[in-house]
């Protein structure tokens, strides 16, 4: 088993989860491959594919909310910015992910 194989498996299963939530993988292939690779590394270290762009706080309840795909735990926020925090997933109608800035919740009026 290698990183590429695991990336393939994550890609397959994530697609089934995020599709019904109205999201898809980012069309930016380079970013997608990079983020999936980081998740495989995190999974190897922690046993769980955490979001590569959010810090682990060693508080289980909070850390479980950043297990990829973490969309259900941050639905309002991600719907407002049309992407997930790290940008691995974007709304299904998004064609140019570069136009979607990574805005924190308070900047979109959620805090």
């Amino acid at each position, binding site marked *: *088993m290698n990183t590429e*194989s*695991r990336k*393939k*498996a994550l890609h*397959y299963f994530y697609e089934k989860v995020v599709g019904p939530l109205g999201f898809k993988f980012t069309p930016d292939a380079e970013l997608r491959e990079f983020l999936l690779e980081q998740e495989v590394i995190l999974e190897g270290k922690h*046993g769980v594919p955490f979001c590569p762009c959010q810090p682990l706080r060693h508080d*289980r309840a909070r850390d479980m909310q950043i297990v990829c795909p973490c969309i259900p735990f941050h639905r309002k926020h991600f719907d407002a910015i049309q992407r997930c925090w790290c940008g691995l997933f974007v709304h299904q109608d998004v064609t140019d992910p570069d136009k979607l800035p990574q805005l924190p919740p308070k900047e979109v009026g959620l805090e």
Partner: protein
Amino acid sequence: MSDKYIRAISADAVAPGGVKAVELDGKEIVVCNCGGKYYAVQRRCGHMNAPLDMGTLDGTYLTCAMHCAQFDVATGEALSGPVPPDFGGEIPPRLLGEYFQNVGMLMGRIRTESIRTYPTKLEAGWVLVAPQAGD
């Protein structure tokens, strides 16, 4: 090497998304029905030899029931290693904790290998497998 095909199982006996174990020429094989396309792979998991016919098939991805190692039955490629035990943040009873610590230590040294695939074909309602192909 021989590509002699042998009747393995009736195609109707493996429902779509299903996995059935057969023994052919002394080899333990599982036949997988991936939406009407049949694949045959070795029965033993590439991680710890658990029977893969107890696993779950999703598309061509087969997940072992024992530690959730995953394989692509179309290619035999190992996709994922075992999922580590998780106690949900609770501290397990001492003996159980020690047991899982030992098992975890051993499992960390086990490599998940790709599994062997066998050629298949459909003929008169039967799934035929060539168990000696590649020997």
